[in-house]
């Protein structure tokens, strides 16, 4: 496979995954805040700030009076806002276009339909009445895309590259969600016991990663800081956890790099090292210093991405 095209496919995977997480974050936070347990977590400003915090827009922390329509539009359909869903979807389709000969007709057609859906979505409707409809359509379309990726592509290097993009992006987005919701939990405290550890925001965090039901089934209790972090970071059976994503990155890396003992500081090596560290990490090590953990792991993921670039996409 051409290095240039591999790079494009890697980013196609990342952009598809990214748009899904933004859409779900908007949906879950907005709608769960409507009947949240306290005034602060029910307030519009709090939710909008949380959305901006998650996406990394500094406006979320500037104590400004935010306009709901403006924030929703910037995250959803504003083509002038670099992080909007529409720009992610455009980029995903652009990358698919450049690799049109390599991906299946079925996958291309789904991406193309997805793109036209977003492109033609009415902005006024979206910011006034369409938030639920739009975001649900995004998350469903991305699920379809993942299905097409899995079932209409040969599981070779092309597939491995796309899956690497998806999983690196997924772990990054989960960490960003943890970061944002941890920030929210510090502000919107729960009403009993350890008020941070028992905040309502942990439940929201799990829903943001479609892991709430799984978490309830696994722990059989209301989610707390400990069970949420343990589940979303360390539980390899949770399909959205950082651990699971890294396991997938590890196995797809082996398709690209078949050496048994990877060279020091090769992508394979960096992935394996991070994966091994997380495999033997305890939630207590994270819980006591969440901020530091988040920063450390984001840096490591960034490092992996950089090394991939040097090793495979450098053309």
């Amino acid at each position, binding site marked *: *496979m*051409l*290095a*240039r*095209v*591999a790079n494009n496919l890697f980013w196609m995977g990342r952009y598809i995954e990214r748009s899904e997480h933004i859409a779900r974050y908007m949906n879950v936070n907005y709608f769960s805040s409507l009947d949240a347990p306290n005034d602060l977590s029910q307030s519009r400003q709090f939710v909008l700030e949380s959305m901006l915090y998650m996406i990394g827009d500094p406006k979320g922390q500037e104590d400004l009076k935010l306009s709901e329509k403006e924030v929703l539009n910037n995250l959803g359909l504003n083509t002038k806002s670099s992080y909007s869903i529409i720009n992610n979807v455009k980029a995903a389709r*652009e990358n698919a*276009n*450049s690799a*049109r*000969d*390599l991906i299946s*007709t079925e996958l*291309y*057609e789904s991406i*193309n*339909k997805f793109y*036209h859906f977003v492109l033609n979505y009415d902005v006024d409707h979206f910011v006034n009445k369409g938030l639920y409809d739009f975001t649900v359509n995004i998350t469903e379309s991305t699920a379809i895309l993942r299905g097409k990726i899995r079932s209409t592509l040969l599981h070779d*290097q092309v597939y491995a*590259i796309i899956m690497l993009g998806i999983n690196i992006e997924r772990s990054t987005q989960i960490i960003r969600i943890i970061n944002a919701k941890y920030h929210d939990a510090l502000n919107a405290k729960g009403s009993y016991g350890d008020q941070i550890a028992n905040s309502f925001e942990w439940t929201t965090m799990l829903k943001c990663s479609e892991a709430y039901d799984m978490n309830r089934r696994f722990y059989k209790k209301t989610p707390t800081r400990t069970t949420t972090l343990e589940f979303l970071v360390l539980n390899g059976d949770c399909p959205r956890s950082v651990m699971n994503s890294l396991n997938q990155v590890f196995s797809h890396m082996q398709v*690209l790099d078949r050496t048994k003992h990877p060279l020091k500081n090769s992508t394979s090596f960096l992935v394996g090292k991070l994966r091994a560290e997380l495999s033997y990490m305890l939630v207590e090590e994270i819980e006591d210093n969440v901020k530091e953990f988040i920063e450390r792991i984001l840096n490591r993921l960034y490092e992996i991405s950089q090394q991939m670039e040097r090793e*495979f*996409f450098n*053309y």
Partner: protein
Amino acid sequence: MEACKIKNRTFLQIQNQVAKQENIFSSYLRKPNLYDEVYSSGEASNPIYKKLLDLYGQYTVADFVNLNNKAKSSFFNQGITFQVYGEKDTKEKIFPFDLFPRIIDHDDWQIIESGSIQRAKALNLFLWDVYHDKKIIKDKVVPLDLISTSANYLDQMIGVDPPNKIYNHISGTDIIRHSDGNFYVLEDNIRCPSGVSYVVCNRTALKRALFGVFNHYQAHTVTNYAENLLETLESVKPQGVDSPTCVVITPGMYNSAYYEHSYLAKAMGIELVEGRDLFVENDFVYMKTINGPLKVDVIYRRIDDLFIDPLEFKPDSSLGVPGLFAAYRKGNVCLANAPGTGVADDKAIYTYMPHIIKYYLNEEPILSNVHTYHCSRPDELKYVLENVDKLVIKPVDEAGGYGISIGNKLTKAEIEKVQKQVKESPRKYIAQPILSLSVHPTYIDDKNSFEQRHIDLRTFTLLGKNKEFVLKGGLTRVALQEGNLVVNSSQGGGSKDTWVLKK
């Protein structure tokens, strides 16, 4: 308000037609002086179209509008579109596609197929000759100045031996049927002929919309083009290569034919590369893969001659690969089509095609040429200038239907302008009598009915080592404006699925 009225009227018309149980052909008007492919034998329809007319006759107008919209969205969702650059934003449009197929019976097809191969072979021998011994010029069959003044003759190709002596691996031949019922070749395209992907798309779209009709006809498949193209490319591998690596090179995803490039690469299962994906080292060509450099042996290039290698041709071109031509000259890589083929599909050379076929193959041309006047010859120039209104005037080196003047459509002032242009540079122009292209019932969107529209046919011929192939089908192009004779898609033309019937 006005638009609303029109809309209502159309709707009423549909309502009335449905009420009367009229079918979509009820209002089909036939002009007596045109050759109608469906009604060429007189009042009754041609036998091969009878079943089709019966089947389509079962649809009401409303049914058909619905089917037509479905076919359109099928194209749109598959992303078989081109960009239209507007003032505010770019829009994607589909190429107009007609749901009523064109049928070519077995006997007619034999003529078209053998004629296309004959021309492709003759052109190939001609190209070898004009870049080597120039016997045809020494024997005074073709005048020297036709070659020496051609903008498409590449000095760099003189004396270069393309692998297996093949220049035009892929040829597109534009064929029409005149009102006398015979086929004529309008032009040969042996640079980078495009359109073959639409042949396949049209078939797919028609199958999606009207699969039932295929039960009643035995039409040849068109999906075997890609495998034949790959065989052709592999057959012309450079010496010493066992299993060649073939690639398709494209100018990039913003090129108007990008869909076709990606379709062909996908259907052949080979890489679609851009110039920046390739590099040349020691006169061998490599592509940059995730596992390092990989040697490339055959390149199906969809980049024009002058852009393939900045070291040899246009120095500011970023589409090509520096050093590619040197590798080609050494025989380390095969380019399909070969550089410099443009000299032979020039419209001035076209007029010599009957002589060229005879000279190299010692055969009579199977497909006729349209009689052509060379403005470079004084007596013919005189005739052309006096009869502009009866002629089609074409520039010799333009493609895509640009610069064509159709005499009987011109105003007096326009005629004078054409006369002036031709007088200024006679070598640049040829003229042909205005041919009446045959017409075919074509569904017209705005009118919700079928009308006669002019059509042509582009066939796709492959030449490889011990290999000749013509795609059984080809692209039937339709001029969608009433009375218009220019069918090129860049001029607002549409296309039809084309069935070649089995014997």
